[in-house]
C-alpha cells in the first residue's frame, strides 16, 4: 500500500491529469458530473423499498402513517433548502474563483438586511414544521380509547433477549393469557400496549405500524397502535440491551376480529397432552431433573412446568418462529436450537445458565433432543 502511494505521488503526469479533471468547469469535468448524477439518481431509486419488511415507507396504521406524513413534509422542505443552499454554495465557488493573484476583492463586512432576512426565513420555515410536529406528538400520545373508541389491552414485557405478551383473559377476568415473541392483534382495532421491563432498557418498535417507544425498568410506558391491514409485521428491539440485542426480534400478527378471538380462545386452553410415544418421552425429559426445562418455562396444564424465567411454551408449536423471531419454527431449526442454542443466538441466557448446556455430563443426547422437538412441536 505504502509503496503504491509513493509511486503514485511520484508519477506527476498521471496526478496532474487527474487533478485537471477535478478542477472546476473543464468539459471532462462536466461530463463526469453528468454521469455521476445519473448514476446517483439511479441508486436513489433503489434506495426506498417500501417492500422491505421493516421499511418505514409502508405505513399500515394511523400512527406510522402520521409519522410518515410528517417525515415527507419535513423531507420536501429540507430538500428545497438543500438545493437552494448547496446551489448557492456551488455557484459562489465557481463564480468567485480566483482569476488573478493580485486582485483584492472589496472588503465587505456584512449586510444588515441580508443577515436579518436569513435569520427570519429559517425561523418561519421551522415554525411551519413545528405546528404539525406538536399536534402529531399529542395525537400519538393520546390513545383514541380515551375518547371512547373500543380498544384491547396488551402488556409487552422486554426480557434479555425476547418479548412476552400478556392479554386479559376474556373468559376469566383477572387471569392473564401469556405468549412470547408473536403478538396477535385484531385488524382496525385500537390496541393499547403497556411496556415494562424487569431488567435493562429495550425499545418496542414495529416500523410499519408505529414508531418506537422505549421499555424502561421502573417506568410504565404506553403506546397505542392500530393496524389497517392483516398480515405479519416484523418488529425489533431498538435500544441496545446487551449481547443478543441484534437478535431480539418479534412479530405482530394482524388478523380479522374473528380470527383473533379464536386465537385468544385457543391460547386460553391448557397445553395439549402428547399422544405419540416420542412426544410423551419428550414431556418426561422436559419435566425431568436432567434437562430441567420446567424450572424456567411454563407449560400450562403441567403441574411441574411453571417457571417464569423463560418464554411461556404452552402453545409454542403454534408459533411461526422460534428464538425471538430469528428462525422459522420447523423441525430442523427447533432441533438446532435445542441442541446448541448459543450457535443459533449467541449469548442467550438459556445456553449460558441451563445445566444441559453448561455441564458436559448433563448434555442432551440426540435421541433426547428428538423427543423434546416432537413434544414441543405438538404444543399447538
Amino acid at each position: 500500500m505504502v509503496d503504491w502511494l509513493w509511486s503514485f505521488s511520484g508519477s506527476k503526469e498521471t496526478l496532474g491529469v487527474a487533478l485537471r479533471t477535478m478542477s472546476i468547469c473543464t468539459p471532462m469535468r462536466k461530463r463526469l458530473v453528468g454521469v455521476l448524477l445519473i448514476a446517483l439518481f439511479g441508486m436513489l431509486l433503489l434506495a426506498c423499498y417500501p417492500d422491505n419488511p421493516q421499511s418505514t415507507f409502508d405505513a399500515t396504521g394511523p400512527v406510522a402513517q402520521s409519522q410518515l406524513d410528517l417525515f415527507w413534509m419535513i423531507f420536501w422542505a429540507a430538500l428545497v433548502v438543500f438545493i437552494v443552499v448547496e446551489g448557492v454554495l456551488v455557484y459562489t465557488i465557481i463564480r468567485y474563483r480566483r482569476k488573478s493573484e493580485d486582485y483584492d476583492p472589496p472588503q465587505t463586512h456584512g449586510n444588515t438586511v441580508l443577515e436579518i432576512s436569513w435569520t427570519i426565513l429559517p425561523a418561519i420555515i421551522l415554525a411551519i414544521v413545528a405546528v404539525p410536529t406538536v399536534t402529531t406528538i399529542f395525537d400519538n400520545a393520546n390513545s383514541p380509547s380515551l375518547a371512547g373508541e373500543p380498544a384491547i389491552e396488551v402488556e409487552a414485557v422486554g426480557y434479555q433477549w425476547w418479548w412476552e405478551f400478556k392479554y386479559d383473559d376474556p373468559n376469566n377476568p383477572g387471569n392473564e393469557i401469556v405468549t412470547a415473541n408473536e403478538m396477535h392483534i385484531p385488524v382496525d382495532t385500537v390496541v393499547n400496549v403497556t411496556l415494562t421491563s424487569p431488567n435493562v432498557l429495550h425499545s418496542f418498535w414495529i416500523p410499519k405500524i408505529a414508531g418506537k417507544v422505549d421499555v424502561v425498568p421502573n417506568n410504565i410506558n404506553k403506546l397505542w397502535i392500530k393496524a389497517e391491514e392483516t398480515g405479519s409485521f416484523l418488529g425489533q428491539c431498538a435500544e441496545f440491551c446487551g449481547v443478543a440485542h441484534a437478535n431480539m426480534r418479534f412479530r405482530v400478527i394482524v388478523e380479522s376480529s374473528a380470527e383473533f378471538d379464536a386465537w385468544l380462545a385457543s391460547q386460553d386452553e391448557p397445553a395439549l397432552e402428547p399422544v405419540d410415544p416420542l412426544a410423551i418421552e419428550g414431556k418426561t425429559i422436559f419435566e425431568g431433573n436432567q434437562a430441567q426445562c420446567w424450572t424456567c418455562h411454563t407449560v400450562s396444564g403441567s403441574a411441574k412446568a411453571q417457571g417464569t424465567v423463560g418464554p411461556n411454551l404452552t402453545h409454542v408449536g403454534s408459533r411461526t418462529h422460534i428464538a425471538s423471531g430469528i428462525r422459522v419454527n420447523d423441525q430442523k431449526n427447533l432441533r438446532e436450537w435445542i441442541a446448541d442454542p448459543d450457535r443459533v443466538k449467541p449469548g442467550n441466557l438459556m445456553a449460558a445458565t441451563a445445566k444441559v448446556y453448561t455441564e458436559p455430563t448433563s448434555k442432551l443426547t440426540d435421541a433426547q433432543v428428538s423427543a423434546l422437538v416432537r413434544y414441543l412441536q405438538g404444543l399447538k
Partner: protein
Amino acid sequence: MTTLGIPIPKRPIHPTGVWDWLTTIDHKKIGVLYGVTAFFLFLTGGVEALWMRVQLMGPEADFVTPEVYNQLFTMHATTMIFLGVMPMGAAFFNFLIPLQIGARDVAFPRLNAFSYWTFLAGALILKFSWFMGGAPNAGWFGYAPITGIEYNPGNGIDFWILSLQVLGIASLAAALNFIVTIINMRAPGMSLMRMPLFTWMSFVTAFLLILAFPVITVALIELMFDRFYGTNFFVTSAGANPLLWQHLFWVFGHPEVYILILPAMGIVSEILPTFSKKPLFGYPVIVLSGVVIGFMGWMVWAHHMFTVGLGPVANSVFAVTTMAIAIPTGVKIFSWIGTMWGGSISFKTPMMFAIGFIALFIIGGLSGVMHSSAASDAQQQDTYFIVAHIHYVLFGGAIFAIFGGIYYWFPKMTGKFLGEKLGQLNFWLMFIGMNVTFFPMHFLGLDGMPRRVYTYSEGMGWDYWNLVATVGSVVLALGVLVFLHNFFKTLISGEEAPGDPWDGRTLEWSIPSPPPHYNFVQIPTVSDIDDWWHRKREDDSSLAPVAGSSEDEHDIHLPDPSYWPLVTAVGLFIGAYGLLYTLNIGTFTGFPLFAIVGGSITLVGITAWSLEPVNEPDSDH
C-alpha cells in the same frame, strides 16, 4: 523556598530530545503533542470502525463475535469523541490561541502540560482495556442499568468510568487555562470583538467544558459507587429510575456535541476569509450565533430521549427548542457563503476541506431538523438514520474542519507545506469515501435497520447499502492513508514555507514559521479585526514578518520547563488503577497498593510543583 528544608530538584534548563518533550511547558510543543497523540488515537478509532464495517458488509457475518462488536462500537465512539476530536481541538487551542491573541504563552503553562499528560493517562487507561480483560461494551452513552454490576460484571465499564474521570480532569484544567488566557493575555488593543473567530469559538467551548464536565463527573461517580461500594443510584432492582442517568448524561452530552463542533466552526471561519481574500461576512453575527448555540445547547438535551416516555409536553418543548437551535447554525452557514461571495477564491487544500465542511454540514443540519420533529423521530431514533446524521456533522463537520486546519496551519507549525497535490487527492478520497459510507445509512435507517446490531438477517433489504457503506469506508481509509503519506513525506522533504504563506489575516501569520519559542519579539498592538491583513495593506514597511525589533530577544523571560506536571499525571494514571486492583498479602486482603503509590506520586508532584521557582536563578532567560 530553601527555608522550608524541602529539596526540590532544579528545573531542567534547555533539555534536549525526549526530555525536552517530557518537560516542555511551551504551548506550541504541547499543541504538537496533543495533535500527534490525538491523531494516532483517531487512527485506532478508525480501525475499530473498519472492523465493524467488515462485520456488517453482508448479512449474518461472523467476522467478530457479538461481544467484541459491542466493545468495538463503544470504543469507536468513546475514542473518536474523547480521544480524537476533542484533543485535536485542544491541539489547535494550544498552538493557536496565544499566537492569535498576541501572547507569549498560555496563562498557566505548567497546568497546560499537566492537561496533556493527564489526557494521555486517560487515553491509555481506556485503550489498555482491550488487553486487560475486555473493553467497555455498553455504548459511549453507557445507559443504566446495563452498566451496573448485575448486568455487566467485567472490568470494561470500570476502565471506561476511570478513563472518563481522568480525561475530565484534563479537560477542566485546559478549559480554565484557556478562559484565563483569553481574558487576561490578549495583546493591547485586541478587544473581544477583534478576536479571531477561532479564538472566539474556543472561548465558548471552554465555558461549555467547565459547565458540562461536572455533570458527567457526578454521574460517573454515582455509577462508580454503585459498582464498587454497593450504592443504588442506578440499580433498578433496588428501585432506581434509570432515566436519571439519561438526563445526567445528555445534560453533559448535548453541550459535548457543541464542544466538538464549535472549534471546527472556528477553524472554518479562519480558512474561508484567507482563501477568499475577504473578511468574515457578519463577524459580530457569527460570534453571537456561536454564543447563542453555546447557550441553547443546554436546552435541548431531551431530544436524545424523545422515545423514553417523557410525555407529549416535554417532547413538544424539546422539539421546538431543537428546531430553534437550527437558526443560529443556519446563520453561520449563510455567513460563510457570504464570506466567499464576491471574493477571490483559491482552491488550496485547506479551502477544499472548509468548503467540504459547509457542504456536508448542511446535510447533517437538515437531517438534524428531521429528527427534531419528535413524532417523526420515533421512526428514526436508534436507527442508522441517526448514525448517518452524526457522521455528517462529526465527520463531514468536525473531522473535515480539523483536516482543513491541519493543512492550513501545518506551514506555521513546522515551516513546511504539506504537499498540495497529495492534499487534493486526500480531500477527494475522503469526500467521496465519506458520502459513499454515510449517505446510504440514511436509507438503511428509514428501511428499519437499528443501530448497534452486530448482525442482520437476509431478506431485510439491507444487504446492498451495507455493502456500499463498507466499500465507502475503504475509500475513506485510503484518504487517511494518503494524508499519512503526505505528512511523513513533508517532514522528510517538504517545501519550505515562509512566515505568511497564505496571505493570512490574523496575528499568527505575522511571525516566522515555525514561530520562535517566545512567539513575538515585541507584543503587537492591535487596532482592527484581521489586524495583520490591514497592516500589510496599509503600511508596506511593516510587511516584514517580525514586527519591531526594539527589544532584544535575549531579554524575553519565559518560565523554564518542569518535571512536575508529568509526575502528577503519572500518579493519577497509577492511582486510577487502585480502584480496580488491590493486593492480597497472606490474610490481609484488599491492600490498595496502586491507590497509595499513585496518590503519593500525585501529592509529591503537586507539592514540588507549587514549591519550585519560576526560573532557575542561573538560567539565562
